[in-house]
């Protein structure tokens, strides 16, 4: 059986004055119903652009091409924008980071919620309103009926994000894409919203792509993880395997960077990844991580580094063998 969404060899190029920015370079990922795939990486690694390309929402000047993108048994790269508009919102919904800018301040939330359903399904306004009330209650908003008449500015950040989630679910989509859904929210609210997303996903048996830079969120939410760096996937695997046994030096570095209460010693130096993320303009030779990697050797600067498959769904992009990678991680933890 094929996956709900399967993306193979996706490229996104953005022409700039300084040259062509290869923002996404050969990315593969797939997600199934009931599964959560997390794309994780630092700003500029191409995680958001990858899904925007799938939804055909990239800015006009950006070019994208892929080997194949299949969604729900349909080949997406052959779908025209007109058909795409019917798929977006009804079959794949997006939850954006900043609920204040993603909601229209001039319309009531009831209006915006109903519009999502009226656009895609042959329903009456009353039916749309019933669905809106049902979903607002589902996302934990009390007095849903009276909330419909409110405007976005009358709601707090947490409530707005709940409205965004409800809006995404209006058409009962098989796939939901959440782009940094909790980054703009407070910590206690973040935990609540994530729990809500996870339970709704189970209830409606949706596939979810979760884009975030927060490794804590990834660890607690994802079934599968794809770590991205500089437009490439550098490591993928089940969340448990990837966090407990990270292979790529970048993944290892990221995990050493974050302070974890009870594990990292307060006041002591955290691990860090030296240098900064390079801008991927023009052709690059060798490994993308070479200039920040502690274990760099001659081949890294010249050889083509491909994803190496260890087991089903577990891949990493490094010239070192898994044994050496594991040993490196153990040694760095010991010091």
């Amino acid at each position, binding site marked *: 059986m094929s996956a709900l969404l399967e993306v193979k060899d996706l490229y996104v190029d953005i022409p700039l004055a300084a040259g062509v920015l290869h923002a996404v370079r050969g990315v593969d990922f797939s997600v199934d119903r009931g599964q959560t795939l997390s794309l994780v990486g630092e700003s500029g690694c191409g995680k958001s652009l990858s899904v925007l390309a799938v939804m055909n929402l990239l800015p006009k000047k950006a070019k994208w091409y892929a080997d194949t993108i299949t969604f729900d048994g349909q080949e997406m790269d052959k779908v025209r924008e007109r058909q795409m508009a019917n798929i977006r919102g009804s079959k794949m919904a997006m939850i954006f980071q900043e609920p204040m800018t993603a909601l229209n301040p001039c319309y009531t939330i009831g209006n915006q919620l109903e519009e999502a359903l009226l656009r895609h399904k042959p329903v009456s306004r009353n039916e749309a309103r019933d669905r809106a009330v049902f979903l607002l209650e589902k996302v934990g908003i009390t007095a849903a009926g009276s909330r419909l008449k409110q405007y976005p500015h009358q709601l707090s950040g947490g409530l707005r994000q709940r409205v965004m989630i409800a809006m995404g679910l209006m058409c009962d989509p098989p796939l939901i894409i959440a782009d940094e859904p909790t980054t703009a929210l407070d910590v*206690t609210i973040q935990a*609540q919203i994530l729990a809500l997303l996870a339970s709704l996903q189970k209830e409606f048996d949706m596939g979810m792509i979760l884009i975030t*830079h927060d490794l*804590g969120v990834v*660890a607690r939410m994802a079934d599968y993880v794809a770590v991205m760096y500089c437009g490439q996937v550098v490591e993928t695997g089940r969340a448990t395997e990837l966090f*407990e046994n990270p292979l790529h030096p970048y993944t290892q570095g990221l995990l050493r960077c974050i*302070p974890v209460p009870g594990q990292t010693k307060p006041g002591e130096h955290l691990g860090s990844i030296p240098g900064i993320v390079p801008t991927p303009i023009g052709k690059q030779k060798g490994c993308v991580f070479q200039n920040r990697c502690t274990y760099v050797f001659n081949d890294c600067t010249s050889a083509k580094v491909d994803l190496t498959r260890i087991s089903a769904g577990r891949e990493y992009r490094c010239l070192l063998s898994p044994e050496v990678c594991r040993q490196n991680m153990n040694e760095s933890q010991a010091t």
Partner: protein
Amino acid sequence: MTTALLQTEDITKVYQVSAGVFKGKRSLAAVNGVSIDINRGEVVGLVGESGCGKSTIAKIILSLEEATSGQVYFDGEPMATIDRKERARRIQPIFQDPYSSLNPRKSIGSIISLPYRVHQIGNKAEMEARVTEIMDTVGLPPRFRSSYPNQLSGGQRQRVAIARALMMKPELVICDEPTSALDVSVQSQILNLLLDLRENRGLTYLIITHDLSVVEHIASRVAVMYLGRIVEEAATDKLFKNPRHPYTQALLTSVLTPEPRLGLPETHLGIAYPNPIDPPPGCTFHPRCPKATDRCQKDSPQPVSENDHMVACYFAEPPQ
């Protein structure tokens, strides 16, 4: 007992905000009777959610805002009696967003040397020497001197902001969300730098943040704020081992560590963050509190300190 480097005594800040087009102005108490002591060499972490008044406290300490009531003492003297330039020399800020806190039209060298020019210290050669020295301290390569902020990455910009703050050898540095705008790998670089500077220069920090893992790592004492009040304050290890206030407990359970087998935490909090214009009566936390009773709706609990562990709650866990 030695006097604290910075002491705020029951400071309150009330803003007049518009409640609606025809409803006129209403008052919003952003900070509601906050007393906090910062001793020399300490790193005090101030945590709380957005809108709890933590940044307002920073502004009051920096004299960017005037407190409605209450006093701020610096090194034992009332802040108001200290000359403005003197204050700026001894207390320096590092702000959250290094994209908006640096003037895009000035070169890095000029941004870092500005404090020397404002205070008219030394001649040009001394100033240049000091800029070179400070850039080296914060890990900025000398070639950036004639660059402009837009040519630098977020982490490098934050280093510039830190260099500028350290130019005058301040005694107290107020860091308002110093790493929240940065990527994870850069955040750890900046935290390491702040730790080094503290060790080498005996700096005192007030770190304002919403990120509890950062606080746990860098702070020696933590104060937790909720809706303009400090609800719990203790040494960092004490507070993390034995959180006494239900809000602190919820905050700590909400920290998501990268442990995939743990799943999502249950915070037992109501969803509604109260409107600060219309704060709930009694304990402001009661609408969200799992332990709240009738008493909490009527009376506001006063802070009680036991065993150097302050908490303002009727049903606080016992101190250890």
